[in-house]
Each structure stands twice: as C-alpha cells, then as structure tokens.
C-alpha cells in the first residue's frame, strides 16, 4: 500500500479524553509518552480535546507536556458520540496532517480510533503497551501483546499517515506537572448541529464503583483459576479486606459471576502497578500477566510448582489456596488484635 506525501505529516497528537473537565489519567500518560517520542523526532506535541465547558483543561494539558492544545468546545459534543467526535478529528487531521496520533485504549478510545483510522484510510494498532521511534526510519514502532503465551508483536505503519495507535491505560508514565511551561491554545470551530446527528443519547447511568478503582489501588489480591468455588472466592475477599487491598481477577471468576468485569486484570482488562500484588491460584499466563507484570512486589500462591507466575514473582508459595489463604487470614487477624 503506497501513500501520499507522507513527509508532509509532522507532529504528534494526543487525543485527550475528558470527563467533567478533568482529563483521563491515560491521556496524561500519553502526553508524557508522546513528549518523549516527539523529542526524538524533533516534533511538536498537540493535545486535542473535545467537550463542553472545558476551557480550563487547556492550561493543564500544556503543563503536562503539550506545545499546543486544540479545543473543540460546543454543547453538541458535551457527551461522547462516535461519529460527531470522529467528524471533528478527521476534519482537523486532514488539514493539520499529524504524523502520529495517540489515543487511550479505554472503551471510548477503542470505539473512536478505528472509526477515525478507517476514514483516514490509515493503520491503527490497538492496545499497545510500548511505543518507540525506529532510529533508522523514524517510524513509530508499536508493541502489543498477542494471543498466546508471552507473544509480542511490533507493528509499524510505513506508508500511510497518521500512524495511529491506542495505548493501554497504566503502561506509560505521565510527566510531572510544570506550570511554567508555555503553549498555544487553538479553538476549533464545531459546525455540527444536533439536528444532523444520527445517534441520540437517551440516557446515561453512572454507577458508583465498589471501592477504589483497581488501577489506583496500592495493594491487589487477584483471584485465578485455582480458586475453584465461591467459598474460596469469599476467602480471597476476606484476605483482601484484612490487607486493605482491592480484589482483582483473571477471566474465570468474572465468567462465574463472582466479581464484576471492572475487576479484570490483563489483556482484556485493567493494567495495574500496585505496591503489592498477591496472585491466588493465578497461573501467570500472558492474558493476565500483561496487566500486572509491573507490580512492585509479586506474591504467588499456586499448587503447580511449574506455573508461569513463579518465573516473575518475588515470593512464591507452592500450595493450595484453600489451605494457605485461611492460614494467612488467621495470622493477620491475630496481628490486628
């Protein structure tokens, strides 16, 4: 596939997801990562934000690493809708010609990015965990974990622009806020009328999440295949409470309905970096480990001494969670008294 004048495309854009005027954490992480990539290309970083009543956010985005902030502020884009947001971004991308576009791989980003990429007839690599600039070609190299054990793929988009990627929350580092940074704020005119939109939002219901969000917890106790029944799961929950931790899980306990989907860790769930991670009956397959490998201290409890998780754990216990967890609970209770 050959493309148009790809040399005309300059600069790196970060699409910033916001709610109630607050940027999503992943967007700040992408500004940090984007800044480092852009510096290698000697390029500018543009933060692109869409919403209503979001004037305040622009300065913050400069302090987190943006050189320019493009703001589309209009009642018609108050709530996210795929086509309306895509129309605005595509129009600006066609004239602004960014070389790279980074979008957080949240539900929102995974809905938006492929639509934008398809309209621009360019490539979009989903759910990346690492980004680099190839020193020879200047191409963006996007690394993502793939199906199967520990399989990684490096994806490039050599002939089309922009090079688009969605990046998993929690894998990149945001820069420390620098309020002395200067930048330019550009207002994007929104020409879309509510009458012209096809998809209507009839209702939005936000449920208060149970406890601290998993990706912000300092301690996580994760429940895997080795926790075979609901009773075992309740023990995990009790252990977690005693440690002041949050409960996470691999796919199985979620499929069983013991715990809600926002507690899933791994390729199709959250990426976490807690100070303490305890895997209970977790084998450590890439589907899960991709989301927890950067935890500071990893404790693994598993009956199988050859389980993958022992290859990257700090402390390992070969044993049955049914016996080890109750023993831990008993001693932690004594400790608390």
């Amino acid at each position, binding site marked *: 596939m050959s493309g148009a004048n790809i040399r005309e495309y300059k600069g790196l854009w970060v699409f910033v997801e916001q709610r109630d005027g607050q940027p999503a954490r992943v967007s700040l992480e992408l500004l940090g990562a984007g800044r480092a990539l852009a510096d290698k290309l000697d390029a500018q970083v543009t933060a692109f934000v869409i919403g209503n009543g979001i004037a305040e956010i622009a300065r913050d985005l400069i302090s987190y690493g943006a050189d320019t902030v493009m703001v589309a502020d209009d009642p018609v884009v108050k709530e996210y809708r795929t086509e309306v947001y895509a129309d605005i971004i595509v129009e600006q991308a066609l004239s602004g010609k960014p070389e790279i576009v980074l979008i957080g791989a949240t539900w929102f980003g995974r809905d938006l990015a492929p639509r934008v990429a398809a309209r621009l007839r360019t490539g979009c690599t989903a759910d990346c965990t690492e980004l680099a600039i190839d020193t020879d070609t200047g191409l963006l190299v996007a690394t993502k974990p793939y199906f199967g054990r520990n399989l990684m793929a490096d994806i490039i988009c050599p002939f089309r622009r922009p090079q688009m990627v969605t990046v998993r929350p929690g894998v990149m580092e945001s820069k420390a806020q620098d309020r002395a940074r200067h930048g330019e704020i550009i207002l994007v005119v929104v020409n879309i009328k509510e009458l012209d939109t096809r998809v209507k939002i009839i209702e*939005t219901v936000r449920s208060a999440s149970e406890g601290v969000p998993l990706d912000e917890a300092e301690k996580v106790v994760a429940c895997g295949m080795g926790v075979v029944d609901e009773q075992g799961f309740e023990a995990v929950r009790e252990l977690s409470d005693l440690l002041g931790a949050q409960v996470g899980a691999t796919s199985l306990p979620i499929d069983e309905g013991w715990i809600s989907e926002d507690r899933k860790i791994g390729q199709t769930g959250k990426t976490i970096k807690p100070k303490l991670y305890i895997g209970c009956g977790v084998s450590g397959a890439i589907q899960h480990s991709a989301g927890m490998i950067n935890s500071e201290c990893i404790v693994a409890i598993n009956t199988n001494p050859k389980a993958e998780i022992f290859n990257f754990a700090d402390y390992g216990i070969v044993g049955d969670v049914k016996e080890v967890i109750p023993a831990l609970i008993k001693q932690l209770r004594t400790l608390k008294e």
Partner: protein
Amino acid sequence: MHTIVFIKQVPATSEIKWDPKTGTLMREGAEGVLNLADKHALEAALQLQEQLGGHSTAVSMGPPQAEEALREALAMGVDRAILLSDKAFAGADTLSTAYTLSLAAKKIGSFDLILCGKESSDGMTAQVGPQVAEFLGLPQLTRTREITIQDALVRIKQKIEDGFRILEAPLPAVITVEREINRPRIPTMDTIMEAYRSKEVTVWSAGDLEGDPELLGLAGSPTQSRAVYTREVKKGEVTMLEGEPDEVAGKLIQALQLKGLL
C-alpha cells in the same frame, strides 16, 4: 428484518504459528474454532429474528477451512452462509478486513442490521466492527448489552467505564455485542447434521466483490507486523517460601512486614 452477522474462525489456543517472513498468523493447518464472542452476535441475530421475523446471513472471511465456522452458524440457525475466500484476502489487517466485509455487505444488498462480536480472541483489536460501519457510512453502536428494535430505530444499552448509556440510532446500523448480552444456544445433533447435509456455504472470491483490488489483503493493509517474538518474563530470583500452610503464612507476613507492606 435481515441481519448480517460477521464471524471469524480463530486458532485454538495451542495452535498458534507465525510466518517469520511476513509476520502474519499462519492459519493453514492450524485447528480453528468459531470465535466465542461471535456466537453471542449470532445468538442476538437469531433472537431478533424470533421476535420480529425475517432472516439472517452469516459471513466470514478466511481460508477454505473457515467454512467450519459457517457450518456452526448454520447449525445455530442462520438461514444463509457466505465464505469470502481468496488468496488475495490473505494477510489483511483490520482496515483491509473491514473493507472486504463491507464489500460483501454491499453485494448482499438489503439488510437492516449488521452484528459483530466484541472482538476476536486472536487479534483482540475490536476494530473491525467500527471500521465496517465507517466503510458503509452507518452508525456504530459498540459494547452492546441489550438491543430493542422499533419502527426502523434501534435502541441499545451500551456498557461504559462506570455504568451504561441508552443510545438510539436509525437502521441500518452496525452493532458489536458484549458477552453479557445473551447465552448462545448450543446446536443439537439434528441441526448440526442438517447444517452439513442440506445447507450450503456460498463461496465468494475477490472477483465476486466489486471493489478496489489494491485495498485487499496484505497489499491493502497499512499496518505490518515487523516482528513477532516471545518475551522472557523474568524479574529476578523468586524467593520460595516452604513448609506447612501456617508456616508459609508466617514467613510471608514477616517478609511483607520487612518491606513495609503491612
């Protein structure tokens, strides 16, 4: 009501092989199964058909062996099955796949709805559904947990990060469904036999689709796998704690206390 369901045959977990030259997945010779998420899309189509009447068509792009996935769709109850199979389609990324599927939808002609599973278990990008919607110029409704159709309008319940939204769009539309939307039916022995004996899988090649041949397959894919490799995940030495449950529990608590984690 005519629903098209796009489905994919994916490799069974143990059968992953990569072509070291092209960096793409080698599907020839690997055992394939119907992508689990797609069964939920098929089930959603069949339930709508039961409520509203009409018919359903399952379409898959893949090597000749992907016919198996379409037979499974027929066994579940779809009326018609079409396999898009041609060497020209091989090595497609999400954009090229979505383009090819959109050409098939155009050739099928009249439809009210396109359903897709949330994502495939191999690529896991969740991009093909939205990109099909773009190529067809249709609204996209993703992460769907409920579908209601009335008067050429569809309402869906969409899962969002911390809750849900009710969205409404005109038909035709492209909908991707979440696993929670339903429990896929399990075909009976009779319907399986019928799917093999008395139903047909139509095969369309690149020549049957009216599109730009340069946008098909590997040649039409803007993204390329430069390298596929396994990564050793090793952080350092693991300290194994040994003994009876009470003993190891004590050792762990002590270790965590020393690290200031309790």
